[in-house]
């Protein structure tokens, strides 16, 4: 009597024999013992940017599509056809085009993606107030306690919204349903694209055990290496370890690893989860060595980040400079600012100091700037050292107002003209 849901006609009932929907005969059934009880979901759009482009240009439907920028850029997203050829996101474009030369490369159009994202997120927001967006194309949902409201289980509600998104936007999403955020996120990835997977609390531990530790959030290549040295290759190794040993070896994160390895994750779906940082970066057409050239690339990025900060009424306490060397090493340098900033001027002043220490003859292929440790933007200055920031903010606000009224090119700083020359 395993609970079953039909993903085409939303029929629910006990698992039928043979495994086809007794109402519409569809084979797309979700069968799981805990199906009626799980309420935490992760929803992830399938190859989001590429799918949006394909929808808008139907002639590309059966061709490989890569979304990404420039001859030197990287793959932002690629469609599933391109993936069959071995293209992956974050792959350098030249490499992607070598293995998949027939691909159509499209420059990303974030305005369009944001609009689509909003349409999808709005649909999710109608299901529950507890929607925590992770990015434009992913969100966690907590549907606990919404059964009476929707007249059906969380699984049923999700299957319906998944179909609804597909009909309305022409985009497919994959759903993961589980007992917590961590498992839900893993689940949504299992059956992509257009998937619906469930990981129950009962099977979580066994399911995770054989997987590499890198599936745990927070375990990157470097941490994976140190875990391997300590003898932990798989999640099962961590689950078996004494939490105390993990805590002494890896500190606070050791305890969290132990819990995650058991399939436990106590984090709540938090719709107010604040963003951790705002950043922008660019890859150059040709490697740059001169400080002046690097600074010219840096300034528009600072402006971009600062504009985002102002728009969202947040300020960054720490500026982070990112550089990628010609051998693909990433260098990041951070510095705390005198006062949390919302202006390109303050970001640039710190970033150029950080840059000066790094740009000593080395060639770089990418530069980026970020603002982190975000705080709510303060009102009038309450700090002795905020005077400069207040003045810079005033002029930045004035420029924002002009741009809103007369267009993005209405007013520019002299420095920006160097990289973005006006055509008369």
């Amino acid at each position: 009597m395993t609970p079953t849901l039909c993903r085409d006609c939303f029929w629910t009932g006990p698992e039928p024999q043979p495994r086809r929907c007794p109402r519409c005969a569809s084979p797309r059934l979700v069968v799981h013992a805990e199906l009626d009880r799980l309420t935490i979901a992760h929803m992830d759009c399938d190859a989001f940017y590429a799918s949006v482009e394909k929808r808008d240009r139907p002639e590309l439907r059966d061709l490989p599509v890569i979304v990404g920028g420039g001859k030197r850029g990287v793959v932002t997203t690629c469609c599933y056809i391109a993936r069959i050829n071995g293209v992956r996101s974050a792959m350098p474009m030249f490499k992607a085009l070598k293995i998949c030369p027939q691909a159509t490369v499209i420059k990303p159009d974030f305005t369009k993606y944001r609009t689509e994202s909003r349409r999808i997120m709005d649909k999710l927001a109608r299901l529950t107030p507890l929607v925590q967006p992770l990015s434009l194309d992913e969100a966690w949902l907590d549907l606990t306690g919404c059964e009476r409201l929707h007249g059906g289980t969380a699984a049923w509600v999700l299957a319906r919204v998944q179909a609804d998104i597909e009909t309305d936007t022409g985009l497919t999403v994959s759903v993961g349903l589980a007992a917590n955020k961590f498992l839900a996120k893993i689940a949504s990835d299992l059956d992509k694209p257009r998937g619906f997977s469930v990981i129950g609390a009962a099977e979580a531990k066994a399911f995770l055990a054989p997987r590499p530790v890198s599936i745990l959030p927070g375990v990157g290549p470097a941490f994976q290496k140190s875990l391997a040295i300590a003898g932990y290759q798989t999640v099962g190794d961590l689950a078996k370890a004494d939490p105390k040993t993990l805590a002494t070896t890896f500190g606070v994160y050791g305890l969290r690893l132990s819990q995650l390895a058991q399939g436990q994750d106590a984090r709540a779906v938090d719709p107010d989860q604040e963003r951790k940082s705002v950043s922008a970066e660019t890859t150059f057409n040709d490697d740059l060595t001169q400080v002046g050239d690097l600074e010219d690339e840096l300034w528009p990025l600072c402006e971009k980040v600062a504009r985002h900060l102002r728009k969202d009424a947040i300020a960054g306490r720490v500026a982070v400079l990112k550089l990628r060397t010609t051998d693909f090493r990433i260098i990041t340098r951070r510095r705390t600012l005198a006062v949390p900033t919302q202006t390109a001027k303050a970001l640039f002043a710190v970033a150029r100091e950080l840059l000066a220490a790094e740009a000593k003859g080395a060639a770089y292929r990418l530069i980026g700037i970020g603002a982190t440790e975000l705080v709510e933007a303060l009102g009038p200055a309450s700090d002795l050292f905020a005077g400069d920031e207040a003045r810079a903010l005033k002029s930045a606000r004035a420029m924002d107002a002009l741009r809103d009224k007369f267009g993005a090119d209405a007013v520019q700083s002299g420095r920006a003209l160097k990289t973005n020359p006006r055509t008369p």
Partner: protein
Amino acid sequence: MKFTIERAALIKALGHVQSVVERRNTIPILSNVLLSAERGGVSFSATDLDMEIVDFADANVDTPGQITAPAHTLYEIVRKLPEGAEVELRYAGDDPRLQISAGRSKFNLPVLPAGDFPVMSSDGLSARITLDTNDLIRLIDKTRFAISTEETRYYLNGLYLHTVGEGASAQLRAVATDGHRLALAEMIAPEGTTGVPGVIVPRKTIQEARRLLDDAGETVELQVSASKVRLQFGRASLTSKVIDGSFPDYMRVIPRDNDKSLTVNISVFAAAVDRVATISAEKSRSVKMAIEPGKIVLTVRNMEAGQAVEELECEYDRDSFEIGFNARYLLDVAGQIQGEAAEFRFADPASPTLVLDASDPGVQYVLMPLRV
């Protein structure tokens, strides 16, 4: 190693060095004090790796030698010995512990080898600059309350000691700020200070130095390098790393053109602020000053705790206005004013206010107002 020493001399030396030792240490030897017995006396060193204090005491040294022992335990033992006791400290090869005996008391403490004790190098320190002890006490006392404790701006977590001006008008200046208030004190630069780099001396170092200054003679000697500072107080010396960062351009935030001058009896003012602040909200401690010719009306309004108003006289003859301050900041500054009168120089309710001590032209305070 073996020596006998008077309890008073021992407790003084240990007292000078032991407070550097952190209560909790992950590196065991940092919990210890280094004892080095040489002819004529013993030197005591303690360190937390950022700061080192060394003191020297006369003792009857029988066998010279060196060893380290737990600093706090040793200090506690000596503190509890009867006054006037002769204390013998002994570390001999046959017993791997430090023996302390005085009268009928005997203690054995675990030791760690002296060779493992980290010693701070004195490379690059400048020539010795001689300072009057009271002058240095003044610089520290007038400013240290404003040192920031907020870690995001680590470069404000110390006292910025530097020289300004040249020749006969050169000044040695101490500045501390936490972004909400700023304190500046200066004195005529002693000989040898020109060309010495400005340094940010950490809060803990200032605190220890201030303690040692109480027992110092008439003068102290200062040595500075870009990364370290050393003070010699008679037989005791303190060497500390300085904060690696640049102190902000504080001159830009000291208002020069504030033209609304108000003079008030500072003890009357402080007592009044203290009274009305009794009911101020815990967090902002905001006090409103309504200023009009001849008087100040202090008001605290707290939604939960009620209201307080107090009126006091002052010398003021410009336009009336209202301005708010954190009561604690006002009291901190008031506490440093030596003379009877303090002068407040205001610009407007949103701009920094300058506070001056009528009896000491070498100090300046800046307060950032709160919104009221």
